């Protein structure tokens, strides 16, 4: 995990470096999907979790549901197995000494969620790349003063 995270931190501290990476790698592959992205008016496509309406949403939801299914197994699988096959699940593990069910719950579940989260964020970044979406080109507006007033006004 640590090496993965550190790789990330460098990309994240400066969104721009991530951007230039995008430009180098998406090359020809992005073409078709990038085209689809540019031709999509996202504000006229329905949002429905069960019926994705854009190519991007379809790809995104495929990742989301895959991750979700694995997550359900990681969270409630061990405890359900423990309920169904108590003897097998409570046997002591070699080396670590844990009863299996205890290890899968106390260590396995949180760790799976962390790995899945990392996997998802990587996938989602790759999806941006595939569709030629570049977060770095968006100019950063001034903080504070003017923006505060405008936003504040919008809300009142």
């Amino acid at each position: 995990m640590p090496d993965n995270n550190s790789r990330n931190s460098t990309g994240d501290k400066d969104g721009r470096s991530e951007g230039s990476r995008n430009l180098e790698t998406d090359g020809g592959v992005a073409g078709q999907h990038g085209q689809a992205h540019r031709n999509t008016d996202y504000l006229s496509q329905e949002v429905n979790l069960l019926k994705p309406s854009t190519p991007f949403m379809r790809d995104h939801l495929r990742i989301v549901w895959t991750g979700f299914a694995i997550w359900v197994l990681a969270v409630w699988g061990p405890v359900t197995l423990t309920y169904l096959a108590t003897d097998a699940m409570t046997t002591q593990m070699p080396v670590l000494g844990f009863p299996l069910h205890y290890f899968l719950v106390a260590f396995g579940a949180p760790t799976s969620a962390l790995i899945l989260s990392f996997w998802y964020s990587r996938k989602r970044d790759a999806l941006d790349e595939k569709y030629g979406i570049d977060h770095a080109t968006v100019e950063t507006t001034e903080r504070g003063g003017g923006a505060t007033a405008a936003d504040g006004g919008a809300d009142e």
Partner: protein
Amino acid sequence: MTGIPPVPLQESLLPESLDISFKLLPAILVVSMLGLFLAIGFVFRVADTENMWVAGRSIGNVENGMAIGANWMSAASYLGMAASIALAGFYGLVYVVGWTTGYFILLIFMAAQLRRFGKYTAPDFVGDRFNSDGARAIAAITTFLIGFVYAIGQAKGMALVGLYIFGDYGGLIPGLDGYQVMVVAMMIITVGYLTLSGMLGATKNQAVQYTILIIAFVAGLYAVGWTQGYSTVLPQLEYGMLIDSLGSEFSEPFATSSYYLWVATTFSLIVGTCGLPHVLVRFYTVESERTARWSTVWGLFFICILYWSAPAFAAFGTSLYSENVRATYGDPGMASAASEVIVVLAAQLAELPQWFVGLVAAGGIAAAIATIAGLFIAGSSAISHDIYTNIINEDATQRQQILVGRLSIVALGALTTLAALDPASSIAALVGYAFALAGSVLFPMFFLGMWWENANREGALAGMTTGLVMWSIPMINEIVPTYMSSLEAPLSAGLAQWMPAIGSALITLPVVFIVTIAVSLVTDEPDMETKRVVRQCHSPEPMRQQQTAEDVVTDGGETPADD
């Protein structure tokens, strides 16, 4: 340990076998820590609402990750979780699972979309998405209620730890015992710093608080494991070797709870995670949606460091308690007040130097203060921003808004202090009730509102009302009677079994979903502008830092939209 001084047991809330006395070095440690928080809060003190509520949307990846971690890891994580694992065995692990894995759901379904929506508070989302001040008000009241219920557990944790450091001042305030005096003192300090600093100060502080609490917790664990010969380099895995010797109560599945209760509690904690206003608002404070995603991964990593360690701490503490005090399980067993401070107790029983035990205790205070900060900011913004500014006085000046915000922090603090004087449950359970509430009322609104554009105002109102009512049923059944001497809790044992207060979202959530969807289907669809805002939240097109989905939909972003 032979050297435990006899502690007079005036009140059941004083944890026995914890060395309660004034200790100079730990006291200096805690006072300078609190001084540091105040100084940081003062340096980053705020005078405008943008900074007060969303920290100027300026927070980056790792910093937000740490803030997510500190915001998240409360006295319930720091003290309550190890306590539950020690006393409730395998069932105690529901907190480890429920309070970590929920972040994945938050990440895949909500984090980036919330950043794109980009408002100020959780009730803002509900009010604007469903175009209803009624829905906004229900969400704001829920937010306030969550802050209140949740903070009771924090106040309890701070007071217990404060007893170790500052000693027993029972009677200093007439009629209050040592624990209660400590509740009052700790809450005054917390509220004082919060009213000064607001969200920006709180966020800056949370990164510092995370560092303190995680170092204290992990160092404590390593020191206990090392000096007692339990572990060497990786206590988070090495405690496995110890489990067999702790007695079957520690690891036997479903010994203290049913499979159903296990599933219901984890479910409730998971959906609660995804509906807690002070968690959701962290995604409004970041620079971009990509930061929203990656800071969730960082946040979960930071959280996991503590959650991998807590069961190990519980195992060490249980073992030390059994060796030095008396058998942990059986009769009389470990008292619940002692289990609540098992992290500090373990360090004390391992005969670590006093200043070091003080450090471990200080981490508990940092954890509690950081979470109360997040909760009270969310709760006070619900009152000041969502109810006062949006509903009562639409022309409120920034000065007025901040004044109302500060007053509501004080009100929340006073309410919490009163309730914490005689808390009804363990720290972790108290916090669990707040999760059930968030999972019953707010999570369905965020989830459906974000992922189904046809969810409408009538659906939201019906769904939230259903959620609130259904959440109160097990609370009235199990918790309210403990505050009334004439009643015995629970009122109905059957209800407590199938709809436990701590896991009630397993029942309420599906019902709220069905009600919301059904009512939305039989009433008019929301207007096109609302649908376009939802679509904008899912569009992969990048947005500018200060832009909200509404700005984009109404073109340009600089024109104020009225709704």
